């Protein structure tokens, strides 16, 4: 290392050490208060630690009867909580009730002929693969993170990636909803279809979903291939890659000219388990170190990142049961914004996002994530994919200990001008008028919601803003 490089590195490191990158602006959790038993009443916070609340009650009913009673009697707002993996303030229930469905879990029934299974709403996706495999079934698609509960994933239109693969809610054929008045509603496309279409993606605003019947596929094996390649050449083949692969996504690495590409396809090859479970997290930590040490010298940082990328040219492959191939571990916590765009806007918007990141946000080290989702045929009134034959998604992330808002504020207008709709569980600044303009059946949803929850017991301040109530 040259003397000048060393001195620059040292000076840059010292300067970086003085910058908290907006950490002081992050919301602070409320102080814990003492409950009637003298123990602390614990604040709730989401996975990233950005959202907080101090509920008066925390309930986890153990039966349907107990749940019905809780819905009738518990203080509002009642907010269902799953894994706390949403970045929007869907869960805070200040002064009200935090309601967990963790006792409504597991595979409750199944039909081998139709390949359907009825699953408790509180089941975590990570706990679903194995029991489904035992009955010869598998989820058709899974998100990148599998910590969420089934009800939470459906409520927020959580999705994976693949042009022929729908979001989680698109595979629900029936569900059971318990409203705040204690009504138990079993609905499907045939039975109370108005409630079903509203409940599929409803951010826990109609009541709580205790169970869902899922249209599954036969248990199967998938092959996952991960490789790096120059971003520009990959973008030229983007349509071909999306069409060719069952599941496809890529990440744009900041301060780099490369993309990390993930392709997943069915296979009969023998199992070769993943040995890269920790590598994504290590890569993010390495990118952070590059940011911390070199953000004062953008060209040097890009050179270092590109040089490091070139040494990771060999593709990593793994073959395993589908539920072991789809998800990844995300140890490095972050906040996230994701919008779903009409496919034709995807790549032009990505270019603008990348330019903005390069020109204005050297503090960013998390890659930009790009995915595709089948938009047709899911039938949910609040599906953000509706009207898109194939929906293109761009997600941006920022470290959970740094202020994400300056970056997200620069990126969000790019998504808005491309007619994007935000992911229901990820940060955005939209209000009722914006959502009404984006969702053609918005009023239809509001009418169903008002009929099932006339007192607004399921609404916290954020949801009142979203629905204009």
């Amino acid at each position, binding site marked *: *290392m*040259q003397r000048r490089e060393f001195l620059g590195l040292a000076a840059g490191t010292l300067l970086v050490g003085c910058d908290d990158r907006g950490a002081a602006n992050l919301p602070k*959790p409320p102080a*814990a208060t003492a*409950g009637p*038993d003298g*123990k*602390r*009443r*614990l*604040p*709730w*916070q*989401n*996975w990233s*630690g950005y959202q907080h609340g101090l509920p008066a009650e*925390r*309930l*986890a009913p153990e039966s349907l009867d107990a749940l019905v009673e809780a819905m009738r009697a518990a203080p509002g707002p009642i907010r269902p*909580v*799953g*894994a*706390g993996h949403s970045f929007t303030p869907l*869960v805070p229930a200040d002064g009200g009730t*935090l*309601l*967990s469905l*963790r*006792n409504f*879990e597991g595979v409750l029934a199944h039909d081998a002929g139709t390949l359907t299974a009825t699953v408790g709403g509180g089941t*975590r996706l*990570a*706990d679903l693969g194995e029991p489904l495999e035992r009955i010869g079934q598998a989820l058709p698609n899974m998100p990148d993170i599998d*910590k969420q509960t089934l009800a939470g994933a459906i409520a927020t239109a959580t999705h994976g990636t693949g042009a022929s693969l729908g979001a989680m809610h698109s595979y629900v054929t029936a569900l059971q909803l318990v409203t705040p008045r204690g009504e138990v509603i079993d609905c499907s496309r045939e039975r109370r279809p108005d409630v079903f279409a509203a409940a599929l993606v409803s951010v826990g605003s109609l009541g709580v979903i205790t169970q869902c019947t899922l249209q599954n596929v036969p248990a199967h094996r998938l092959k996952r291939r991960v490789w790096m390649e120059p971003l520009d050449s990959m973008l030229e083949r983007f349509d071909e890659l999306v069409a060719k692969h069952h599941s496809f996504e890529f990440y744009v690495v900041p301060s780099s000219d490369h993309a990390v590409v993930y392709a997943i396809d069915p296979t009969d090859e023998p199992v070769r388990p993943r040995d890269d*479970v*920790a590598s994504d*997290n*290590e890569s993010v*930590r*390495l990118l952070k*170190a*590059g940011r911390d040490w070199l953000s004062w010298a953008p060209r040097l940082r890009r050179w*270092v990142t590109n*040089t*490091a990328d070139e*040494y990771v040219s060999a593709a990593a492959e793994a073959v395993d049961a589908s539920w072991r191939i789809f998800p990844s571990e995300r*140890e490095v*916590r972050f906040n996230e914004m994701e919008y779903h765009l009409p496919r034709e806007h995807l790549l032009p918007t990505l270019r603008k996002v990348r330019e903005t990141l390069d020109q204005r946000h050297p503090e960013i080290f998390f890659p930009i994530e790009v995915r595709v989702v089948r938009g047709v045929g899911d039938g949910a009134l609040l599906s953000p994919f509706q009207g898109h034959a194939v929906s293109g998604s761009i997600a941006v992330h920022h470290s959970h200990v740094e202020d994400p808002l300056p970056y997200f504020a620069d990126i969000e207008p790019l998504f808005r001008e491309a007619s994007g709709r935000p992911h229901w569980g990820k940060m955005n600044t939209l209000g009722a008028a914006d959502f009404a303009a984006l969702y053609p059946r918005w009023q239809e949803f509001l009418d169903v919601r008002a009929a099932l929850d006339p007192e607004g017991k399921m609404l916290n301040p954020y949801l009142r803003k979203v629905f204009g109530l």
Partner: protein
Amino acid sequence: MRRNVLCLCALLLAACGQDSAPAPQGAAAAVPADARLAKVYTQTCRACHSSPASGAPQTGDAKAWAPRVKQGMPVLLDHTVNGYKGMPPLGACMDCGEKEFEALIRFMAGMKG
């Protein structure tokens, strides 16, 4: 210079590595005696605390827990409630209270009483 970059990357990668000592025997099978606590444990804590690759102290691994226990229950509770390193806030049990967290910590750390 190219070699220096490789050294830098290797150094950074090494710094990011986590301890992954083998799990103590029976860590994956152990659950609290209390049925309700056992359910919470299997739904939340067990995924990481019986998997050495997670980097979390393993259930029943007295050696790994000893320096943590030494910090005192209030510190362990704060780490649980606010999240710590790879552990998410509330240890992923969104409806647990202080009493349950204490009991779960005591079980995993093998603390008596």
